[in-house]
């Protein structure tokens, strides 16, 4: 088990190097730092001196991969690639283009993101699984058919609609909670209610439908027939046998996204002006702050790979048939 985890972590390294190179090529090779400087300074202020100044402030005046002016190891380490990409592996994110420490910002903004993402995930899971169980229990009846139809309709509605509709009805017409904003401590709760509700409702359609398929697949298996043949009631069959076995695919599906919860939701956070990592990314995109976008790409990939490793481990924990050593 331990050896397996070590091996998986080692496998992750080439992938992260790949991600790193892709982002580096996207941000520095396809468009040179000169272009970035021009875009940032705007048409009016573009003079060669201004560009050089902008680049020096951010350390972009160095060569891309190989600094032939230096000696020894510095030939490699005193370059843009080393400063901006290699250091990411030590989670040293450096400074944003506007001069703030990205690592510090990420630590600060992680918590509001989690405050929304975790309740949305837990509540969503609870509600979706209950609905799916209900629909699967009444399979091939009108409840099932209409349940699926409603799910498809809910899936077809744009997520933006849920957010705008929720803000409009709950905050503007009914004045129950503030439209958007954030506060520290317990005061934050009143700002969190609406985003959480909207997040949960937005996920019901696809979630319920997905879990229903898992349950139905499980219900058609032999052991369920055996359980019924033993004379167990349909309810016992569902809760004691089907639910427990269906939890394996459900759990592993959840574990993959767990680490990504840190990243928050781009859209929700920016609509509700919550100072999380999602809105941080969006602001960076809109301000064209390349350093932040680059860091977030790297962070996102790391978290995704952690999620994959956790999934494999959780498989062995919940499903004794799976052996990692093999």
């Amino acid at each position, binding site marked *: 088990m331990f050896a397996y985890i070590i091996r998986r972590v080692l496998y992750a390294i080439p*992938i992260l190097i790949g991600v790193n190179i892709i982002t580096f090529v996207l941000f520095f090779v396809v*468009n040179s730092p000169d272009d970035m400087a021009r*875009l940032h300074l705007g048409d009016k202020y573009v003079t060669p001196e201004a560009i050089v100044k902008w680049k020096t402030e951010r350390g972009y005046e160095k060569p891309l991969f190989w600094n032939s002016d230096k000696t020894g190891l510095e030939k490699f380490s005193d370059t843009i690639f080393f400063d901006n990409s290699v250091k990411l592996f030590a989670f040293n994110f450096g400074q944003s283009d506007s001069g703030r420490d990205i690592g510090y910002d990420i630590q600060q903004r992680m918590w509001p993101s989690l405050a929304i993402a975790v309740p949305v995930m837990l509540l969503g899971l609870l509600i979706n699984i209950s609905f799916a169980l209900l629909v699967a229990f009444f399979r091939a009846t009108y409840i099932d058919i209409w349940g699926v139809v409603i799910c498809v309709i809910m899936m*077809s509605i*744009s997520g933006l609609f849920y957010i705008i509709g929720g803000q409009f009805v709950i905050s503007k017409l009914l004045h129950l909670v503030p439209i958007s904003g954030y506060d520290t401590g317990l005061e934050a709760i009143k700002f969190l209610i609406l985003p959480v509700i909207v997040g949960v409702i937005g996920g019901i359609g696809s979630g319920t439908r997905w879990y229903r398929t898992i349950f139905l697949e499980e219900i058609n298996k032999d052991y369920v027939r055996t359980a019924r043949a033993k004379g167990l009631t349909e309810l016992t069959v569902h809760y004691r046998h089907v639910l427990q076995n269906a939890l394996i695919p459900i759990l592993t599906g959840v574990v993959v996204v767990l680490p990504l919860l840190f990243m928050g939701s781009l859209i929700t956070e920016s609509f509700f002006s919550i100072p999380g990592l999602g809105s941080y990314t969006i602001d960076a*995109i809109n301000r064209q702050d390349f350093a932040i976008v680059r860091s977030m790409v790297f962070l996102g990939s790391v978290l*995704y790979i952690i999620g994959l490793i956790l999934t494999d481990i959780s498989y062995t924990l919940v499903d004794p048939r799976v052996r990692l050593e093999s």
Partner: protein
Amino acid sequence: MPFDYVLLKTDALLYVLLIFTGFYVVYARQKEHLCIPWRQVARNKLGMMSAVILSFFLSIAILDSIHFHPALERTSDDVEIQYSTEIISLFDVIVEPLRTRVEKTYSAPFATHAYSKETIEQANGETRREYPRLVYGGSHLENPETERTVDIIKSSIVGLIKGLIASALIISLLIFRQSKQAKISFKERLRIVLQAKTEVPWQVIFVTFCSMMILVFVSAELSLKYHIFGTDKVGMDVFYQSLKSIRTGLLIGTLTTLVMLPFALILGVMAGYFRGWVDDVIQYLYTTLSSIPGVLLIAAAALMLEIYMAKHAAEFTSLAARADLRLLFLCMILGITSWTGLCRLLRGEALKLREIDYIEASKAFGVSHMTIIFRHMLPNVMHIVMISVVIDFSGLVLAEAVLTYINIGVDPSMESWGNMINSARLELAREPVVWWSLAAAFIFMLGLVLSANLFSDAVRDAFDPRLSGSK
């Protein structure tokens, strides 16, 4: 009317896609095993219903993809024809009144008066602040307060009748053809269709078709007199914008797949077929790409495009060409982020296929790898491609709105549902609320995505071999 044809890049790709589809239809008709799943799709009531609705969306998108510079009016006969720099489409010509009848600013759906008060000078020199009449919306009415409701009902009934007549004509033509083919009388065939005794649910298809035609004619009749979804900030008809957005949505849903398909197909099948180091390299490639969160990769690429366009500003002669390039680029980026899932599926399927006897046999006969891949493997993974193409479509249409909202989607000058939502979002704070742009965008999006979802369910049921046993 003289015109100067323009071929936009996305138009060309759409034509390519249509030609491919045409080839596929011709090819599939000759192969019995390809016809079977499609016949099952054709038997699915919900599936056919949504297919009819989708075909209406598709026709609008195709009409909207034939672009040209219209000719300017000549001052005298001996002057050479001058073409406008503006690019319009065939669809614009059809809905000319919708495009040109521009009000000053916001107006509510079916409004006859403007949204905001204006100072109006009266005949006797006094000024008064009141809601002015709209230039076009309901301008034919003498006394809007009393006549409007009656007029709307009247126009709707006219539209309804026209729609009924038009659809009755087309449907009876179809039934006549079917009766000829089955060598029965027209009456007999009509009875069979009405009693829903046909294998393909023609009854459902005709009812859907008829309702869509009525919808088209009623909205056409009404939109000539009113702005049925109101107007936006600069007085453009919202109904027109929603119709134009159909092309953007459809193109993103289909071109993305077209762009990614070759990569996913060839790499996926190669990885599964050759195994060994080829497999390792391809797996490494898609794992790396898929571990970058999609939105962030798109954002990064969109930023890069921004810089590229700023650098090469001179190359874009018109706004339309610029917006078009951006749409194409968005499709490509979406394609790059979404091909990994399909590639993984195809690799798995190819791994299974290579062990099957007929592949072994062709290897034993000394058939080359290329021939095995193209003649024996590709046709046998097509059902996976088909399923994933239709399933991805609706997700991509929804993604467009979200991406446009965070400014990394289509060009702001291009009509799209995302842009409509984006610009209308802030107007909800106005008093009275400006809700119609949002509502129109959401209704159209729901229409397209819901029918696409239902259709994709039908296709998946028919093509997925795992599902065919349980039904």
